[in-house]
Each structure stands twice: as C-alpha cells, then as structure tokens.
C-alpha cells in the first residue's frame, strides 16, 4: 500500500466527547444496542466528535463501565437498556455535569413518575402502537388464518411488541368478523427462546410455531429473526417475516424476499438527536416517548411485498394509524398505563 501523508487527517473538530455503554447484549446485537450505537455514530459524525464506548458482559459490569467512561472524561453518556437504569441514576447523581441519555427506561427508581436525576434524558418507545398496525396487516395478509410470534426473553420491552401485535389481530377480527389466530403469545404466556442468541434453540422455537400452520411470523428480540429465517427455509413454506427495531429490508438485505414489513423503533434517530442536543448545550431531560405520532415508532414500507398485499388493506392500515394517533383506537401497553 501507499503511505499516507505525514499530517494526521481526520482530527476531531470538537472536544465534546459522547460515549455509550451497552447492556449485556453488546453492540452487535442487531437490536437496540446496535441501533443506539448507530445513532451515536451519526451524531458524532454530524458534530465532528470522537466517541468512546464500552460493552458490558453482565450486570455487575454496568457500574464500573459507566464509571470508566466518566474517568475518560465523557461529556454525554448514552446507556442502553432498562438494566442500566440504576447504574445510570447513580452515576448521574454523582456527576451532575455530565449528560446522560438512558434508552428504554424512565430512570424512575423511586417510583415518583419522574427521572431520579435532572441530567438524565429517558428515551422510551411505545412500540405497541406500531406492532398493532403490524398485527392488523398480518391478519389481513394471512391466508391460513394463523399468524405467529415468539420472543427472546419475557421482558416488557419484548412483550410490548407481542402485545401490540396481538391487539392488532384482535382488532382485525373484530372489525372484519374474522377468526385469525395468534400462535405463540396469548397475552400472558407464550413461546420464548430463553435468550437473545440466533441459535439452534431459537430456530427450534420458530419451527414449532411454523408447524402450527402460520404464514406470518414475528420474532421479537435482536438477532433471533435469523434463526426464524432458517426455520422458514427449512419448512419449505411461504411464510412472511416481520422485523423489529429497524427496517430489516435495509439492514439485512438477505431478508428482502421474505420480509413483509418491520416494526420500527427509532432509537437511532432519537439517540442521535439527543446527543446532538447535548453537544449544542441544549440538553433537555424531558423524557422522550416515541409514538406513531412523532414517528418515533412506525411501520416500514412493504418493499417487495408491495404487490402481494391488497392495496385496500394498506389503506386500512394507514387509516388505522391515523385513528391510533387520534386516539380513536386505543393500544394498551405498559407505557400507556
């Protein structure tokens, strides 16, 4: 290769240092850690900053990891996941000069309905709203009259998708007097792989859901959709997949032939915005709640399924979206309580 010029090229143009701690899933989790990380990177690119980040392996790392970023002199620290809530509150209380952005948790340890420290901005996402649309769409799309879902672990951030999805299907049944069934989640119990790894266990769970005769499948939890794809391939059936968090069609092109749509959870955008606000000195600790209304959550385009889905169904979904935003149709979730 050729040697670069002596002078260093892309020096940071600001000394503002945004940082991030992952939860035990790590930054490659194909889920919220990864999306938040992308948000951080795009913010850093926009303001010309360097970043520092630490991956956690277990929950007893959180405190130390947040502290190590404090020691590194970070100005804003993004902590990903409800599991980091306590460590974030503690560190925020001890370091009032640093801005904290906590994803997926209201940072409300004392239960007073407010974040426990003034320098924490919680980012929350009412994904049930978007999942509701996906449920309605799936129910209308399904020809076998069965749609399926399964999750990684039974966490609220996981079941919120499944709850919304189920409500969407129920709503469809109610409106259309149909009888579409949801396999894998009955509102209380359901199918879980026991972890967030795309492994043989996850594939086995997917296979068992598929064997019930579903033709739409919603795997909730990081990379486990990959196992679902393999299960779909092996079943030899024509089954549509619904992605979560990001638009799978874009983030994983290998899914383009089977992904019906994705339930978007705009962590990248909201994280990026929050970091940029902090960099501009306009840090605002008011909790952000992503909804259909503010486009914090949403439904991805149909892409290749454009011609497989009845346009009238899509029109219904679109108007359903308006009704949810307008409050005519109510979506229940732990965030709306």
């Amino acid at each position, binding site marked *: 290769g050729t*040697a670069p010029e002596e002078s260093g090229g892309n020096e940071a143009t600001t000394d503002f240092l945004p940082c991030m701690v992952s939860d035990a899933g790590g930054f490659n989790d194909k889920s919220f850690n990864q999306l938040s990380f992308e948000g951080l990177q795009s913010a850093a690119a926009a303001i010309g900053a360097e970043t520092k980040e*630490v*991956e956690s392996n277990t929950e007893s790392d*959180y405190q130390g990891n947040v502290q190590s970023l404090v020691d590194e002199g970070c100005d804003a620290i993004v902590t990903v996941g409800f599991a980091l809530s*306590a460590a974030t509150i503690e560190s925020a209380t001890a370091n009032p000069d640093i801005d904290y952005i906590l994803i997926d948790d209201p940072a409300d340890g004392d239960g007073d309905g407010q974040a426990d420290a003034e320098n924490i901005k919680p980012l929350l996402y009412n994904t049930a709203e978007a999942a509701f649309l996906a449920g309605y769409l799936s129910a209308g799309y399904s020809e076998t009259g069965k749609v399926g879902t399964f999750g990684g672990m*039974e966490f609220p951030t996981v079941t919120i998708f499944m709850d919304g999805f189920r409500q969407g299907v129920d709503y469809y049944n109610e409106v259309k007097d149909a009888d579409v069934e949801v396999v894998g989640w009955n509102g209380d119990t359901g199918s879980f792989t026991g972890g967030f790894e795309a492994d043989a266990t996850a594939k086995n769970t997917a296979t068992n859901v598929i064997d019930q005769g579903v033709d739409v499948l919603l795997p909730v939890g990081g990379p486990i959709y990959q196992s679902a794809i393999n299960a779909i391939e092996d079943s030899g059936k024509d089954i549509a997949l619904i992605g979560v968090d990001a638009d799978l069609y874009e983030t994983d092109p290998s899914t383009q032939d089977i992904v019906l749509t994705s339930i978007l959870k705009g962590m990248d955008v909201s994280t990026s915005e929050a970091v940029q606000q902090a960099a501009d000195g306009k840090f605002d600790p008011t909790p952000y709640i992503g909804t259909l209304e503010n486009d914090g959550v949403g439904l991805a385009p149909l892409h290749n399924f454009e011609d497989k889905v009845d346009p009238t169904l899509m029109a219904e979904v679109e108007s359903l979206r308006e009704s949810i935003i307008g409050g005519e149709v109510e979506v229940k979730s732990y965030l709306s309580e």
Partner: protein
Amino acid sequence: MSHPWTVAAGAILLAVLVGSVMIAFTDERVTSAAGYFFARPGDLFTALGDSIGGAYSALFRGAVFNPRADGFAAQIRPLTETFNYATPLIAAGLGVALAFRAGLLNIGGQGQMLIAASAAGWVGFGVTGLPFGVHTLLAVAAGIAGGAVWAGIAGLLKARTGAHEVIVTIMLNWIAFYLVAYLLATPGLLQAPGSSNPKAPPTPASAQLPGLLGERYNLHWGFVLALAAVVFVWWLLNRSSQGFAFRAVGENPRAARVAGIDVPWTTVKVMLVAGGLVGIAGASQVLGQVTTGFGGDIDAGIGFDAITVALLGGSNPWGVLAAGILFGAFKAGGTAMQASEGVPNDIVLVVQSLIVLFIAAPPLVRAIFRLPDPDRRRTPREARKARKEAA
C-alpha cells in the same frame, strides 16, 4: 532459578505477548501501517508501540494506579476497584476449591450465586425495621444459607443416589437461572414494586455492606468478608478435624470410610460449606456491588470464573486469594482498556485463560524460556554427559 514464581512470571509474560498480538490486530493504526510496511517501516513500530503500550498502560491505569487522576486518593482508586471485582471471585473460588479438595467438582457456582443473591436480596428489601448491622448480617447469612442449600441439594443427591455432581450442579445452574428469572418477573416475589422489568428493588442502606474506605470508593466490606473466608478455609482445611475429613474423603474415600469417616455425610457437609462460600459471593453482589436492584445475571459468570480461579490457585486458599485478585485486576483493567483504547474485552478472556494454561504446565514454560528443571530426573544421556564433564 526456576522457582514457581519464575514460572508464573513466564506464564504471564507469554500470555501478555499473545494478548499483544491480538491488540495490535484490532488497532487500525497498526493494520494500516502494516499495509505500507516497506514504504515506511518505522510507522508500524510506532503504531505497535502506541497500541500495545496504550492498551497495557490503560489496563494498569484501570487496575492498579491511575496517574492521570487528581490526587493520590483518586489515583489509587483503580486498585480498590480490583479488590472490589476480586471479592466475589475469591469467595466463589474458595467454594470451588474446597469442594475440589474433597474430590468434588462444583460446576454449580452460577446457580448457587443466583439463589444466594435472591435470598440475600429478599432479606435485604423484604425485611424492614431492622437496625443497620443486624440487617446486613441477617442478609449475608441468608445468602450463605441460600448458596449452601442449593449446593447441598447436589451433595445430598450424590450421597443418597450416587448421582454425579457434575451433572447435578450443571442442571441446578439452569434450574436456578429460570427460577430466579421467574421470581424476578413476578410481582410480590422478587420484582421491584411498580416495575414491569425483571429486576429486584434496590437494597436498602440498612442491609448494605458498608463502604470500606468511605464514599469515594466502591470497595465495601464484602472484601473483608472474602478475606475472612480465606482465613476460615485455610483453618478449616489445614487445622480442623472437619477439614481433615474433607481432604481424606477427597484423596481416598475408601480409606476414609475405614477410618470411621461417614463419607456420604461428609459429601453433604462439603457441599454445604462450599455453597455457603459461593453464597458469600452472591450476597456481596447484591449487598455491596449492585445495590440498586439486581437482575437475572447477577452471578456475572463468576460461578464459572471461580472454577478457573480455584484451579489457578491450586485449590489452596492463599492461592485462590492471589488468583482472585489477579482476575479482579483483569476485570477492572479490561474495562479501562476498552473505554480508553477500544480494545475488546475478549482479549482479557484469552489472556486470562492462557495464563492459567501456562502456569499449569511448568515444563512448557521452562522449555520456552529454557529454565532449568529443579526436580527433573536426568535422562541417561545427560547423566553420561555430566559424568564425562566431571571426569
């Protein structure tokens, strides 16, 4: 010359060398400089020095002493973090080591810690109105009891049915994992009130292990507890009649039986004590380390690390102490390495395991560093040569 310490130093050096290669591999400065090595070789060496030196100095800053901090009290903070991380490793390592001395392989540290943490945590936030001190002691005792019970199940099954402890402890790990997951997700059990996350309420101050060196450090009394456990296990194994029975059963259960030692009951006792020691680790996690409410991975993989710690420490309490502190340093320093230099944590895992491997195989280390073997029998050829030289 080839004292055990020399071998240990050699082992660490070797492992650190391998770690260096991996660090260099991850560093873009190094890979890009390597790309034009022939154009400007100096760059590669500078880059190598920067990345490897940077990483290890970050490790040192994170684990021992941070000269960049203001004032000695802050500079020495990393060392206290090392002790902090070492605390559960030492306690759980003792639990594994003790069982090992009695001929039992305790792979169940994970489950024992989870149950211990749940028990200690529950006494912590579930029992109210106790004065500080009493509450802490009660919570620690609950943790010890929890760990003891969970390990005791394995001991009992082994004693009563002969079920192999390796299988039983592995199965109990998973059962504990899902049991605690259930408890944490169920309101009224371990779940924090008002929360829907699988997470326990914070440990109230009255039940916490208080800070050892004051507010500015995280180091808590759990460390003292771990040190006390080291002394206790040393006494138990080397100075007590009970430990004598444990060791006798471990070395030769048949002779122990003939000598009047009740082998099945001893097996149960060993597992109870071992579980209790691992229980200290679990209790110290929720009462000292993560006092803000724990979740399902409060064991933090320590149950498995403990096996390595115990084996590296030669199943001897002082060895476990040293190995626990070494691993604690790697944990504390690994975080700093990642935060400051972006070096992935997995390297620490690799370096740790290489150290254990090399320390366990002195002949290999001696061969690599050409150290003499203190107690080797001479091969005939060398003996002849030596005689010729003498003549």
